């Protein structure tokens, strides 16, 4: 049985359906992420799990028990707020001790537990400070330590790293992964940042317009997006739409608008004539000066229209004769040269038949 079960949960605000019949099962000790653009319903869902909001339909179960009758203060879950929500009039110790005092922990045990929690979040020695004397990352750690000190069964995190700068965010991501492993508590993490979701999670639910578009492991979400929305939302991708013109031996040929016939390996049984999309990651596309001879790969000619030198990689946008754009990524690993091609250079882009991923429409 899953630890946390979300069963057909719906939440409406007037005419607007924020969460639309969502069902998710989250296991014990899992790092689970709700990912989606703002307004997709992920935060509303998280607040319903915490108990700050109640579903209009459906149930939320923890260990098989319906939580509907339990107010937030009586749910064995803790939330880490985006704004940290540290109590400004209490020291770090006071903040971390607060949930222990609320749970009637004997006074004698509190200091040791507070110290242990501060150690967990690497803040030993900061106990006497006030929140305004801490940096953003330290505040975040206090918030996490405060939430973990009572050993809840689920930790809910609402975009906890959104307010941090890029470098610190990366450090905190690694810390979060380690911390989650260490404490073995289920994390339900809300974010709109797809790289964060891919880096942290065991499983991700990609949400859009109140619904779960896809629920999978990060590599599946990235490599095999089920819908155009997921493909487009996660990372950079080329989406080539067209109609199926041929199907043979697990390879479908699609007549892509403005590009011509493109073959893709898929198990899809879509009949000839129906529409589909090939999702193609830029890093799987090769870009060369001349066409490789007698290769079975897809290929087409074009001209470099734009390029972005990013240091580790260079992103090329190649314009094809049919007026479509193909984005390709080249790692700058082999040579000392900053880039291989210039804007206006004629190039040949090619990719293996199994590099693309077919999405039915």
């Amino acid at each position, binding site marked *: 049985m899953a630890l946390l079960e979300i069963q057909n949960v719906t939440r409406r605000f007037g005419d607007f359906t924020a969460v639309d019949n969502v069902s998710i099962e989250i296991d014990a000790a899992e790092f689970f992420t709700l990912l989606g653009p703002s307004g997709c319903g992920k935060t509303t869902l998280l607040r319903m799990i*915490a108990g*700050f909001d109640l579903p209009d339909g459906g149930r939320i179960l923890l260990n098989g028990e319906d939580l509907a009758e339990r*107010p*937030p*203060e*009586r749910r064995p*879950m*803790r*939330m880490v*707020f985006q*704004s940290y*929500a*540290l*109590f*400004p*009039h*209490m020291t770090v110790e006071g903040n971390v001790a*607060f*949930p222990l005092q*609320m*749970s009637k922990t004997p006074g004698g045990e509190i200091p040791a537990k507070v110290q242990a929690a501060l150690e967990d979040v690497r803040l030993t020695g900061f106990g006497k400070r*006030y*929140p*305004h004397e801490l940096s953003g990352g330290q505040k975040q750690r206090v918030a996490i330590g*405060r*939430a973990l000190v*009572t050993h809840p069964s689920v930790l809910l995190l609402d975009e906890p790293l959104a307010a941090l700068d890029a470098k610190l965010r990366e450090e905190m991501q690694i810390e979060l992964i380690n911390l989650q492993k260490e404490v073995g508590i289920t994390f339900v993490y809300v974010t709109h940042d797809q790289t964060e979701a891919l880096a942290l999670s065991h499983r991700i639910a990609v949400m859009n317009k109140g619904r779960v578009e896809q629920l999978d492991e990060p590599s599946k979400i990235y490599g095999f997006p089920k819908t155009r929305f997921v493909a487009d939302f996660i990372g950079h991708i080329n989406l080539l739409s067209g109609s199926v013109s041929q199907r043979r031996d697990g390879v479908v040929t699609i007549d892509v608008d403005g590009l011509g016939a493109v073959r893709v390996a898929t198990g899809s049984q879509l009949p000839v004539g129906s529409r589909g999309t090939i999702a193609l990651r830029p890093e799987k596309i090769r870009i060369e000066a001349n066409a490789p001879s007698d290769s079975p790969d897809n290929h087409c000619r074009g001209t470099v229209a734009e390029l972005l030198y990013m240091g580790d990689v260079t992103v090329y946008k190649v314009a094809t004769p049919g007026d479509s754009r193909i984005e390709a990524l080249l790692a700058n690993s082999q040579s000392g040269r900053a880039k291989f091609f210039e804007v206006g250079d004629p190039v040949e882009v090619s990719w293996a038949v199994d590099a693309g991923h077919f999405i039915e429409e």
Partner: protein
Amino acid sequence: MPARTASRLGRWLVSGPPMLYLILFFAVPSLIMVLASFRTPGEFGGLAPLVEEGKLDLNLDSYARFFSESVYAQIFLKSLWYALLTTLFCLVLAYPLASLIARSSKRYRDLLLLLVILPFWSNFLIRVYAWMIILGPNAALAKTVNGVLAWFGHDPVPLLFSAFAVLVCLVYVHLPFMVLPLYANLEKHDQALLDAAQDLGANRWQRFWRITFPLSLPGVYAGAALVFIPAFGIFAIPDILGGPSDSLIGNVIKQQFLETRDWPFGSVLSIVLTVTALALAGLAAWIARHNLGTPSSSKEARA
């Protein structure tokens, strides 16, 4: 003109007029009063000449009188007590009101605030006189109260010209001064803190006493100071609504200046009143700083 000189001049032009005003109408009169407290009362009121027969006539007689005649200390303590009670009642009444206003939707908030300050639109004395009518022996309130008392076999009590009337009116007059700073503070509270407290296991009562109340203390202190200081020195309300035994220190001071015409002693009483109020305000600030978090944490709560 160099930029630095220009900016200094600008600063003086901005802060100069209010400073001048305060020096002329607050600092100088206060100093005159301090000087007057060391002088001898004139034969027919006012002050005796400062220099008499070539000698400077300054003495501590009026101070000696204040500390030797216990009746003044008693009135002082009574005034202090009334002011403290007024502050306490105002706080208890204003807190729920201020938090209701702070939590109501923007549409009603302005209307409710308007209602709080509405009494200021009519004159202070008129409002005090209105209480004479409300509390008068023939008004519905007194009749109801005495009716109930009679039912219990109790003799009727006069509501007007009593300590009760003075206190009720003191609270009524000062209530907005408590509501407004409290509202200004409570309105800025971050809902996320209460959500966090609730999430961490705090019930409604604990959320109030552990989060809302401590964070509202700057507002409480500001309101308490705005109520306590004027209530301490008030004379009009006991004059109009109090009985003969309800005189407060403000009445005695007024009496010294206008009736007894003993200016030095009136000055002494005024100085003691001011110093006591300042000392209490300082004490409150000191307690706030040392018992309830650092000054900057309360600053953060105010911001």
